[in-house]
């Protein structure tokens, strides 16, 4: 893993470093920003694009859960028809409860699955990271840079960061 990064003590300096890297011609997806907390009021916190598509995946997961519940209840009741209190063999009123729960379960599981898949978690391989992040530092850097590392290092240093380079 090669890369160059700098650690910043405050988000304003990190914002400045990100803008400086962009001014160098780096694309948003080329800059890695790592922090111990999200900084929602800073522009650099919104570089990952919109996540609203996750709601659609959750809805799709819920639909799959609903379909499974419908199949499970209706097929079971047809395969083993039991007369219960004069209710229809396929009793929609009671099956709605099963369908509701499995719809919600589908939405929950698909949401968690989407989170893990889209963030690459769980991750075993060592990744571009510095434990100083856990003490409050904000890491701004470039993984496997296409640009010349010394130029990037200078840019980051000028923004006030403590620069480190990975060979």
């Amino acid at each position: 893993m090669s890369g160059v990064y700098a650690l910043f003590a405050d988000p304003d300096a990190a914002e400045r470093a990100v803008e400086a890297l962009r001014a160098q011609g780096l694309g948003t997806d080329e800059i890695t920003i790592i922090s111990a907390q999200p900084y929602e009021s800073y522009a650099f916190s919104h570089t990952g694009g919109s996540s609203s598509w996750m709601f659609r995946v959750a809805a799709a997961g819920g639909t799959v859960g609903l379909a499974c519940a419908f199949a499970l209840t209706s097929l079971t009741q047809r395969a083993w028809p039991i007369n219960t209190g004069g209710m229809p063999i396929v009793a929609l009123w009671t099956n709605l409860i099963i369908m509701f729960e499995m719809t919600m379960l589908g939405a929950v599981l698909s949401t968690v699955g989407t989170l893990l898949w889209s963030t690459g978690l769980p991750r075993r391989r060592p990744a571009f990271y510095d434990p100083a992040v856990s003490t409050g530092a904000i890491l701004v850097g470039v993984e496997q840079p296409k640009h010349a590392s010394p130029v990037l290092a200078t840019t980051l240093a000028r923004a006030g960061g403590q620069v480190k380079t990975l060979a």
Partner: protein
Amino acid sequence: MSQTVDPITDDLLRPVLRTSPRFWLTVAVLGLIVAAGAGAWIYQLYYGFGVTGIRWPIFWAVYVTNFVFWIGISHAGTLISAILRLMDAEWRRPVTRCAEAITVFALMIGGMFPIIHLGRPWHFFWLIPYPNQRGLWPNFRSPLVWDFLAITTYLIGSVLFLALPMIPDFALLRDRTTGWRRRVYGTLALGWRGTTIEWQRLETAMSIMAVVILPVAVSVHTIVSFDFSMAPVPMWHSTIFGPYFVAGAIFSGVAALILAMALLRRFLELGAYLRPLHFENLGKLLLLMSLVWSYFVFSERLTIWYGNDPAEMAVFRTTQEGSFAPLYWTMVVCNFIVPFALLAPKRTRTTISGCVAASVAVLVGMWLERFLIIVPSLGHKHLPYSWATYRPQPVEIVITIATFAAMTLFYVLFAKFVPIISIWELKVGRQPAPAAVDLDVRPEAMGVRR
């Protein structure tokens, strides 16, 4: 770069990283009580259900009371946390994890009672819908199967709702510990780094989970109420039971949350984070739920009294004037009089001790309420020849006490292993506004030569 001074992280990691003798003493005492409960259960398994007070026609007694009570307590966490997240209430930040942990442990304990209540608990998996040699599948028209699915869904959802925001804190612990702890927390952190994409996805996932978990929480206690209201038993067969149970669950859940927060504040020295404001806000919610609960009880009782059905009036009278009257009026005092007296006046509501006293009363009152829903009705069904009474036996009492110890033990161990307040969420709430300066970041302005 000078590293920032981070008192929040240090304060909140202190209970995890340092172990006092008081912790071991607490674990030992609670562990003994839980062991006594396990012993009582083994005794019950060995000698059979005859050692309990459960007799025809009262087949549901203290165990089902405990089941409904603990499932109700579970509404503290996920429901309150999800509502506060969706409303973006800033004061929620130190409260959410305390609350979500209550949900998970209360569900685990509550979910055990249908199994404890089985004569042959090793057959509990017959409730699970799966193809089997017997050619039998669970009957999806049975409220008990609804229970199984609803509680399983809520438990899975609540565990994930609790676990997802813990990942960044596990990463923090991974970087702050050494040896086996580093390996354990490193595994639990799943390789979390804290990139902007990871934060965005996590926060979106939490928003979706909050939206999804709310109706599930409501459905769970509604379905628990269906265990009763689907049966033609006097004072059970009621259309109001769903919302009445949900209101009662939130009521007892808030009380449990206030009590847990007060204990955490005292024993983990979290006074700077769990402040009087949090107790006052939750106290207001507790007062509101006390009034809602009272409204439901009044509506239910007035309708039955006005209808004057002999079977229902027999239960009505035995609870208000007969052998259950002392428990009934204690319940009214604990669930309405005490919370109203302590939480309506600002002078007592704004004190932590006032909120805690009201919460203890509510927990006692709500356990009695569950008991009074179950036992008097089963003991006074439609035909008087089947009328009976019930007296809990030592086995049931020991198991009941042990569940309270188990809840406390789970909570103590959890607070020892995980920061009980979400560190990153708390920090987000305390971030300063971005500096309002124009940044001249042109390479030339920064002295960078291309």
